[in-house]
């Protein structure tokens, strides 16, 4: 539509004034009226340089921009208010710096209530919001929401059994970030279940941590789990302990524990950086069953090759929801799954349309 108007404008002004239009001032669409779009085209008169100025008072101009290009656009967004007419002047120069032509025109900006370019974004935002909120509330009201089994979690029984059998401990690392990271919280949720299992089977658990906030929470969780398993006497307060905040210092400490204590099973669940590689390698060399899980994409490769079981990305959160049955986590996960389902369906329709040469859907969804 805008293009048509511009075209008509050019067409009629050519017709009326029979003079080349060198400068067009138009409103910047979908904004709060604080900018004007300036486009120039001096290819007819072949200028070597142009300057564009705006009138601020009678006969007084301020420079807006200058260019050596024949055509171009520029957005003037300094002190523009909607509904006021602004006068612009284009001065075209030739090679010697002589003025070839001066062209004047004006334009005004306007305010828009709705950004029309973002309709598709709005539709998707509403869809996803409704589905997440709906599922959270239905989980809260006690509806049973199904979540598939996470294969990485199967290792838990195997690990605890093996540790009991061999009389060796289980090592658990809740990542190296603090409690404000969702991955740490997911890791600690899994620790709750693991500690309960360990208490039931009387396996020893070691949890070295590298953040003081994580320390107090992890202690609390393990203690609670032992109580729940009916074995508060078996809880050893020294089994959860703080090593150091420093990345490599912490890794060196954990490495020492792995080499000395030779745990039967290692769990690395949480956020990890470069230390993932060193932990997984040392654990592998010690012959432990290893389960790892993180949402840090760059660390997953190391876990996948060196560990027996790996929770990949979202699986870590799903595992936490699966174990805790917390309605917020479950409902949110369900809502996100709904988003994935929409994604796949729309994608398939889109691809079929593209193959048949219909570009409507893709154009509608493309946002700029």
């Amino acid at each position, binding site marked *: 539509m805008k293009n048509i108007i511009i075209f008509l404008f050019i067409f009629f002004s050519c017709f009326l004034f029979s003079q080349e239009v060198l400068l067009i001032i138009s409103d910047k669409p979908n904004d709060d009226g604080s900018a004007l779009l300036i486009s120039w085209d001096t290819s007819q008169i072949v200028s070597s340089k142009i300057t564009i100025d705006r009138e601020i008072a009678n006969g007084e101009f301020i420079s807006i*921009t200058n*260019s*050596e290009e024949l055509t171009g656009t520029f*957005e003037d*967004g300094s002190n523009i208010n909607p509904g006021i007419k602004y006068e612009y002047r284009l001065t075209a120069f030739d090679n010697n710096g002589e003025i070839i032509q001066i062209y004047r025109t004006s334009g005004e900006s306007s305010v828009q209530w709705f950004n029309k370019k973002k309709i598709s974004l709005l539709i998707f935002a509403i869809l996803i919001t409704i589905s997440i909120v709906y599922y959270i509330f239905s989980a809260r009201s006690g509806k049973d929401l199904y979540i598939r089994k996470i294969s990485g979690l199967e290792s838990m029984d195997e690990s605890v059994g093996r540790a009991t059998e061999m009389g060796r401990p289980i090592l658990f690392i809740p990542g190296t970030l603090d409690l404000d990271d969702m991955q740490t919280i997911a890791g600690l949720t899994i620790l709750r279940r693991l500690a309960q299992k360990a208490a039931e089977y009387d396996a020893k658990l070691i949890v070295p941590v590298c953040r003081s906030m994580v320390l107090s929470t992890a202690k609390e969780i393990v203690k609670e789990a032992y109580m729940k398993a009916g074995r508060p006497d078996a809880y050893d307060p020294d089994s959860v302990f703080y090593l150091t905040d420093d990345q490599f210092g912490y890794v060196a400490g954990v490495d020492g524990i792995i080499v000395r204590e030779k745990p039967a099973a290692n769990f690395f669940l949480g956020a990890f950086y470069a230390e993932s590689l060193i932990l997984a390698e040392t654990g*592998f*060399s*010690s012959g432990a069953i290893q389960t790892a899980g993180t949402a840090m994409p760059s660390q997953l490769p190391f876990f996948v090759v060196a560990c027996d079981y790996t929770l990949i990305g979202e699986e870590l959160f799903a595992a936490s929801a699966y174990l805790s049955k917390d309605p917020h986590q479950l409902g949110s996960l369900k809502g996100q799954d709904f988003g994935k389902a929409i994604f796949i369906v729309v994608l398939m329709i889109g691809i079929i349309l593209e193959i048949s040469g219909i570009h409507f859907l893709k154009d509608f969804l493309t946002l700029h």
Partner: protein
Amino acid sequence: MGKAKQIDRRWLFLLIFFGVAFPLIFTLGLPLETTKNVQMVYDLIDNMPKGSKALISFDYDPASMPELHPMAKAIVKHCFDKDINLIFTAMWPMGVQMADDIIYQLKDDYPDLEYGEDYVNLGFKAGGMITIQSMGKNFREVFPKDMNGNNIDELPIMEGINNFSNIGFVFSLSAGAPGIKEWVQIAHDAYGRPTSGGVTGVSAPAILPYVNEQQQLTGLLAGLKGAAEYEILLKAPGTAISGMDAQSAAHLIIIIFIIIGNVNYWRNKKAEKMGGK
């Protein structure tokens, strides 16, 4: 699991040390070819009109210098050759020093460059994505002054820059977050500016999906190889190219380690099986 056969890993460390050091001293100069993503970055800069303005964000610190510094140097050089005016910013505080260092290294090659006219260093701001979004609305509120304490209104290069609109393209040299991802999400996806960048090898695979038909990213330089390719396209060999032989040697050593490790593992497993029977 074959633990008895493990050798002390410090021997491997030594091997890697010399494996990288030797090719640096005795270079072979093996050939290197350029890839599409690097060519796209080159073309983007090459086709920019003279006198346009570009924003280059230094989102890294000394830890990633070997990978990103050669890229930064090559990109800045290319822009100066094409008469593109550069606005430097940093989402990481140490990026400021990185930008300064690039200018320091290039100042002999380009003696005519004027600070404030051809380039400017606006320095570091915290806040990551939110601050970038804010730049799209109130550029001058985010950066009232440059690194040297000059008022931004007094710098000719900043004339007409109130948001991203009059910026030709955005280029982020990124070693993590905040970095290139945030620039894609705001500068391109919200404000429609062409966006490109260079990343460390570690983050390259995760950023790659943005190089697509929608041109969320216009090309991408990934790791030392990306930097070396750009140096080739620019015909200005630098530290990236001279490191490529060492890179080859080290990769070869790692691949050989993987093969030996796997062969050992399967042999032990077979032996265990035989022993078990």
